[in-house]
């Protein structure tokens, strides 16, 4: 079967080589134009990966240029391996999110593992030590055997790599939606910390400098990963594509991290780039293009792990855990020493040149830096033709014929309270939501990830944003990922805005200030006008939200062609936010902390249940729409909560998102082991008030004497607020009052009872076991011992089966 691994998948009918490599006829013409001649096989292979959607962003580049990228303290942004933002004290944070969707669908363990490895390399390539990983995972039906196989393999893969390499996985998402049935999403975000002086770019400066390759050897794994696998729609579990998936070695990566950071710290290298998608073709051409230089590569000097590899295979192999660096000749012995001490193979593979070309020779390079007499030049391409000057496609964008608009603010309320059956107890609805696959405890997943290695983890996974202290300072970094595919499917512009709003809100409610945004845009085939329109709308929505909320976009990744024979995924804008908390002692968390505290709701609800967890559970009125978002109000809400926390007024804060207000409050209760007695005014429909997901709202608790000051502060920010009641007891009681509550609502045919009243132990039971039940796995043991952040209280421990 060796043919299968050495050649791109053979089509039924012989096709021209360029098409086999994923290059269109029009693109071949453009390549001829760049070269002024026909490309040879090696050159064509290099173009095929570099002009792939994955490496060139040829469809999305014109859109991404519209995003706001300027902001305070930005040291590196889009176009670099990761965004880098100053955080004071001479330190900076590097972060980025990236997808590994198709590899994970083909080979879940290795696909997910190498997804982690790839994003970690993007971080330490900037000179930063990786300190955290967040994984945002999306699947189809959790009860389907294939989904279960993917979940198991992908979770093991993320853990298998992160645990071994010694970077804690501190957060992320796990979402089930039918649209991901044939195309799961694996988006991984990594965060690193660096001293400002460590910042280094992926450049190859200084003609005459040595080009060295260190790390693992080069093999046939991952051939065509960027072009064949990541940049085309694909059929369900095509075994012929398995060789395009790379194989990860976290032990090698751990050594690579230590060696690379030592090389950078000691200033032994001038520039450094990891080998990811597109392999050595991508690393060499990007490094040269950035520095305005060229690179002469000695093909024979590249260490192989198997004999008989063709030049084109060597040039586009995506074998993992490899780095390309540039060093001054006099530093080469020291560079060698560092790599050898860490047990890492290193080879001198080329020279930096002045001609701006990536030139590849067989037959060696002499000490004068020129090809040996008799050496054969097997490829020569201008570096910029492969990178900054690569082809761009201006795709057609067409909205679908019929789509729902978000309702304008202020439109009349309509009652959408179609609970499943007449007389249904809202407590039962709440328990059903808390036990649903998307809202139940993610414990089964995150308990497979080392969450505390490196001794920085302040907030463990499970209760909102991740919090990492910054050693040697009072500061902390707060990080989260959020993506709203349900609303994006109805309105991609609003869905992207909501994703940014929720992610930044999740950071702001801890007291931290969002300092940068990274994004992973998972969309369908851009050659389909409707799919491209979704992408265009999402970028517009993300840009508008970032401008209003004052958060710069520092980088990201676009994953297109997320389609399979059953259809396209729901558009999924995955947003990663990093925030800075100046004083970690002021950190506020979601759980209620103290009996007798007041519970305050800030923000007001709007109509619309479309896209909500409630709608997925209970069904939806046919003409309903998602709730609208007012970005100015969202900005005000986030400023308000940071101000209130800064003044020391807030004991706990939780945002209202999936499952609505009732779920948000239930989480505060369960996680704090404390009940609450509340009264909620209902104007329109109880279902909207309790379970609606209109944005720009949060629930906080505070000492009763601080409640008036908080309500006054909210008014100053132009926000509605209401003190709902107080924390205490072992039940959650929400009495519904006002014209929308039972009496009046019953006459209109409302089916919701006038109060929600439920024992915490019952909510906890539903929440604890929901995910394991859906996946059919061994339920993770209920907390039998106290978690330091969720002290064991009689109500919080969960009921044994």
């Amino acid at each position, binding site marked *: 079967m060796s043919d299968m691994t050495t050649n791109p998948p053979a089509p039924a009918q012989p096709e021209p080589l360029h098409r086999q490599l994923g290059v269109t006829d029009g693109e071949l013409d453009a390549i001829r134009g760049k070269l002024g001649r026909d490309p040879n096989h090696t050159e064509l292979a290099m173009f095929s990966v570099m002009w792939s959607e994955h490496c060139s962003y040829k469809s999305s580049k014109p859109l991404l240029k519209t995003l706001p990228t300027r902001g305070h303290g930005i040291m590196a942004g889009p176009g670099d391996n990761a965004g880098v933002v100053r955080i004071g004290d001479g330190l900076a944070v590097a972060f980025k999110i990236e997808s590994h969707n198709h590899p994970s669908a083909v080979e879940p363990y290795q696909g997910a593992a190498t997804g982690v490895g790839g994003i970690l390399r993007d971080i330490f390539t900037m000179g930063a030590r990786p300190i955290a990983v967040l994984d945002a995972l999306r699947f189809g039906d959790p009860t389907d055997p294939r989904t279960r196989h993917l979940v198991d393999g992908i979770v*093991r893969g993320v*853990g*298998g790599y992160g*645990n*071994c*390499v*010694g970077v804690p996985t501190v957060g992320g998402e796990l979402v089930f939606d039918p649209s991901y049935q044939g195309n799961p999403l694996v988006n991984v975000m990594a965060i690193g910390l660096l001293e400002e002086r460590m910042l280094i770019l992926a450049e190859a400066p200084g003609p005459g400098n040595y080009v060295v390759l260190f790390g693992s050897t080069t093999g046939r794994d991952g051939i065509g990963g960027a072009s064949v696998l990541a940049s085309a729609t694909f059929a369900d579990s095509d075994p012929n594509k398995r060789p395009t998936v790379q194989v990860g*070695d*976290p*032990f*090698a990566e*751990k*050594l690579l991290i230590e060696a690379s950071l030592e090389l950078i710290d000691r200033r032994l290298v001038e520039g450094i780039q990891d080998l990811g998608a597109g392999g050595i073709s991508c690393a060499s051409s990007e490094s040269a293009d950035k520095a305005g230089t060229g690179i002469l590569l000695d093909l024979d000097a590249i260490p192989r792990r198997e004999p008989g590899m063709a030049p084109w295979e060597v040039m586009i192999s995506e074998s993992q855990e490899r780095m390309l660096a540039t060093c001054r000749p006099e530093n080469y012995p020291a560079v060698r020493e560092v790599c050898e001490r*860490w*047990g890492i193979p290193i080879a001198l593979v080329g020279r930096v040149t002045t001609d701006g070309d990536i030139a590849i020779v067989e037959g060696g390079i002499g000490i004068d830096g020129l090809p040996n007499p008799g050496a054969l030049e097997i490829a020569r391409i201008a570096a910029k033709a492969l990178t900054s000057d690569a082809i761009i496609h201006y795709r057609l964008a067409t909205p679908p014929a019929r789509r729902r608009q978000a309702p304008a603010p202020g439109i009349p309320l309509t009652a959408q309270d179609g609970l499943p059956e007449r007389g249904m107890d809202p407590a039962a609805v709440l328990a059903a939501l808390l036990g649903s696959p998307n809202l139940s405890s993610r414990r089964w997943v*995150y*308990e*497979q*990830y*080392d*969450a*505390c*290695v*490196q*001794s*920085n*983890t*302040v907030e*463990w996974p499970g209760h909102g944003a991740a919090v990492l*202290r910054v*050693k040697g300072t009072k500061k902390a970094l707060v990080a989260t990922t959020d993506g709203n595919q349900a609303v994006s499917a109805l309105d991609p512009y609003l869905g992207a805005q909501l994703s940014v709003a929720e992610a930044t809100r999740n950071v702001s409610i801890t007291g931290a200030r969002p300092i940068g945004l990274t994004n992973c845009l998972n969309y369908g085939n851009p050659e389909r006008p409707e799919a491209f329109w979704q992408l265009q709308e999402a970028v517009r929505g993300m840009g508008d939200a970032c401008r209003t909320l004052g958060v710069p976009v520092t980088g990201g990744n676009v994953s297109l062609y997320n389609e399979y024979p059953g259809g396209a995924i729901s558009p999924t804008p995955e947003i990663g936010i990093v925030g800075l908390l100046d004083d*970690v002692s002021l950190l506020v968390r979601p759980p209620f902390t103290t009996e007798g505290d007041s519970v305050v709701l800030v923000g007001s609800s709007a109509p619309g249940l479309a896209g909500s967890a409630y709608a997925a559970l209970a069904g939806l009125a046919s003409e309903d729409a998602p709730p609208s978002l007012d970005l100015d109000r969202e900005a005000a809400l986030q400023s308000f909560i940071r101000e209130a926390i800064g003044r020391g007024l807030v004991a706990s804060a939780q945002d209202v998102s999936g499952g609505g207000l009732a779920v948000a409050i239930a989480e505060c209760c369960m996680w704090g082991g404390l009940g609450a007695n509340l009264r909620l005014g209902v104007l329109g429909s109880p279902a909207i008030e309790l379970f609606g997901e209109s944005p720009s709202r949060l629930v906080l608790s505070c000492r009763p004497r601080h409640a008036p000051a908080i309500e006054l502060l909210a008014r100053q920010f132009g926000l509605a607020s209401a003190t709902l009641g107080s924390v205490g007891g072992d039940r959650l009681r929400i009495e519904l009052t006002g014209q929308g509550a039972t009496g009046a609502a019953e006459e209109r045919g409302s089916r919701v009872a006038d109060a929600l009243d439920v024992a915490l132990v019952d909510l906890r039971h539903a929440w604890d076991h929901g995910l394991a039940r859906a996946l059919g796995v*061994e339920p993770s*043991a*209920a907390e*039998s*011992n*106290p*978690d*330091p*952040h969720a002290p*064991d209280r009689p109500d919080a*421990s969960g009921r044994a089966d």
Partner: protein
Amino acid sequence: MRIGVVTFPGSNSDVDALNALAVAGVEPVSLWHESPDLHGVAGVILPGGFAYGDYLRAGVIARFSPVMRGVSDFAAKGGLVLGICNGFQVLAESRLVPGALLRNRSLRFASKIVAIKPQRLDSPFTHRSTGAPLHIPIAHGEGCYYADDATLDDIERNGQILWRYVRSDGTPALDPDDPANPNGSLRAIAGVCNTAGNVAGLMPHPERMSESILGSDDGMQLIRSFVDSAKAWETGR
């Protein structure tokens, strides 16, 4: 006084041990795997991680590294050695402590806070413990303590079981399926020592619960016991 922390290729919790030692106010010294020279330290920690990748079996390659010769000699002279997580696996593979660590009963990596209770308060590793359960994290795939019945009876009799996983009422989680026993360890054993009492290993990570900002400083009871004992041993020499 100086305490050494060994770095094998693939060690990753060495930074946590160095951090906890700094919190304890002692000078930590990094010891490189390729040299048997311990640089005159008063105690040695073998940290957590995946030494040499642990692809074959946890700890099995590390035991052959040059530094382990130095560690064995040091232990034979009565020097204090503490193995945490992967370090415990290395000590077990090296036969410096009894027993073996098998894959977790769940066959999955397990990362969570567990409760362990010191079984005696007169050992060099526990004498500064309050005696109450410590709530500290585990993060391992191969932490199921195993030994044959005769060995288990022996170490029980000799007082070599230093820590056990306990339930919320403080009783040992003896049933391998008890949720408080996170990996199915026999007799709820979380950590043991050699017969001389100067070499101990445990699966949970005391060094990662070293400061209240991280959730608690429970782990420092163990780290301080170890540091004080090392200090006394050095003074006694």
